[in-house]
């Protein structure tokens, strides 16, 4: 065999590369179309993951708001010793990694953990514990900031109109309502998009604790791009809906 025959020709490489690119594009577009078809054909696995995501995020957000809004309000409204340190701690917790939260909660709720008898591991409520820990600093910090950033004339205005203690409190909360809603939406975005906590505490169990994000991780690992793309489209739709609401509120607040 001559040297010329052994050496691949440059023209042949280009053809092979172009062919690979065409195949890849076809593969992606096929995955996309199959994904759309899965959504509209009401594929049970896809909608089971959506249902688990909604139940999980609903539960964790309910607990987060119930605890976070009143505490965040007090953190922004009241003066007490150690308030500055507490603000720093809460702000630092904003960037806590999801896997660290997953690990800590796992240690507590696993069978050998102090709360093992509650049988929370690999359940939606168990996952909600982890997501609440993730979302709570967001709601606390942003609610406190919302209250701190209310107009400096607000208190005097309310007093001159005759508001008393509870009136001052509720009216301040009402003035900050759009910012507090922003805090809630930001936290909701964080819990619906996270993977670490859901994977570690939920175990990604089909029909039970498999959420959109854990399902995407699994399907991509298996090479099932169409299911991953279908779930990805739904997650993006959630995200767009949230961002639309956020930007509407920001515009309204800035008016």
């Amino acid at each position: 065999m001559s040297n010329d025959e052994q050496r691949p020709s440059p023209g042949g490489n280009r053809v092979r590369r172009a062919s690979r690119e065409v195949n890849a594009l076809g593969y992606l577009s096929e995955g996309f179309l199959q994904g759309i078809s899965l959504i509209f054909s009401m594929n049970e696995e896809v909608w089971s993951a959506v249902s688990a995501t909604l139940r999980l995020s609903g539960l964790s957000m309910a607990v987060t708001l119930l605890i976070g809004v009143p505490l965040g309000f007090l953190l922004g409204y009241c003066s007490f010793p150690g308030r500055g340190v507490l603000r720093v701690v809460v702000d630092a917790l904003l960037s806590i990694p999801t896997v660290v939260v997953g690990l800590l909660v796992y240690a507590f709720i696993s069978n050998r953990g102090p709360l093992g008898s509650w049988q929370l591991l690999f359940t939606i409520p168990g996952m909600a514990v982890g997501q609440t820990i993730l979302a709570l600093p967001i709601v606390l910090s942003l609610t406190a900031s919302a209250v701190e950033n209310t107009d400096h004339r607000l208190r005097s205005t309310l007093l001159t109109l005759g508001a008393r203690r509870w009136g001052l409190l509720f009216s301040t909360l009402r003035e900050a309502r759009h910012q507090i809603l922003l805090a809630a939406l930001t936290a909701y975005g964080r819990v619906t998009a996270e993977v670490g906590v859901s994977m570690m505490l939920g175990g990604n169990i089909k029909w039970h604790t498999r959420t959109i994000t854990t399902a995407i991780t699994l399907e991509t690992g298996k090479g099932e791009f169409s299911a991953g793309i279908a779930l990805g489209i739904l997650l993006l739709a959630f995200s767009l809906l949230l961002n639309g609401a956020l930007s509407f509120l920001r515009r309204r607040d800035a008016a």
Partner: protein
Amino acid sequence: MTPPLYEVRDLVCSYQGKKVLGIERLDIAADGPTAFVGHNGSGKSTLFRALAFLLKPESGSLTFLGRPTEGHEELLRRDVTMLLQDPYLLRRSVFENVAYGLRARGERRGIEDRVAEVLEMVGLSADFAGREWYQLSGGESRRVSLASRLVLRTKALLLDEPTANVDEENGFLIAEAVKNAWLRWGVVPLVASHDLPWLDEVTDRRVHMKRGRIVEAEVETDFLL
């Protein structure tokens, strides 16, 4: 005999350790409007905040219609209201803003009529009640703020620079509303302002202030009537 609206004795107010107000003796009559004039930093706003029970004096005494005020500030704030120099509207509709003080006082009946009445007093039509706070011009915002005080029919109405940053027409409407509140309901206006021609419209009675002190108090009574 009606006691003075306020009796101020040895009143001292400080800000960040610096004395900004020191009034030995001042009686403010309840039988008509009084204007407080003086340069910036003369202590008008500080005095008004103390008279509106928004600021706790460092020392001295203050009586309101013959009653001592110390320890009763929250209750007395129902009889006194103040339009701030830079008024703030709650992030609500005009109606909600004007009705706020009435609701804070536990009133439930006739709110719509009273709101419409004071909006008319400040030269705003009834359809303004449905507007949101961000849909108003600067002059309209100030008049809505004034309406939210007038509707309360308090015994004293403190106005801190009510015509700052408003045009002549809005200034005229504010003066008319303040005079009407006094004549109709006996709401005693106390006004701090640099706008001397505007003050002439409201009262001839002047208290001159300088560097946190009263330098001259005129007691002319030929106002309005």
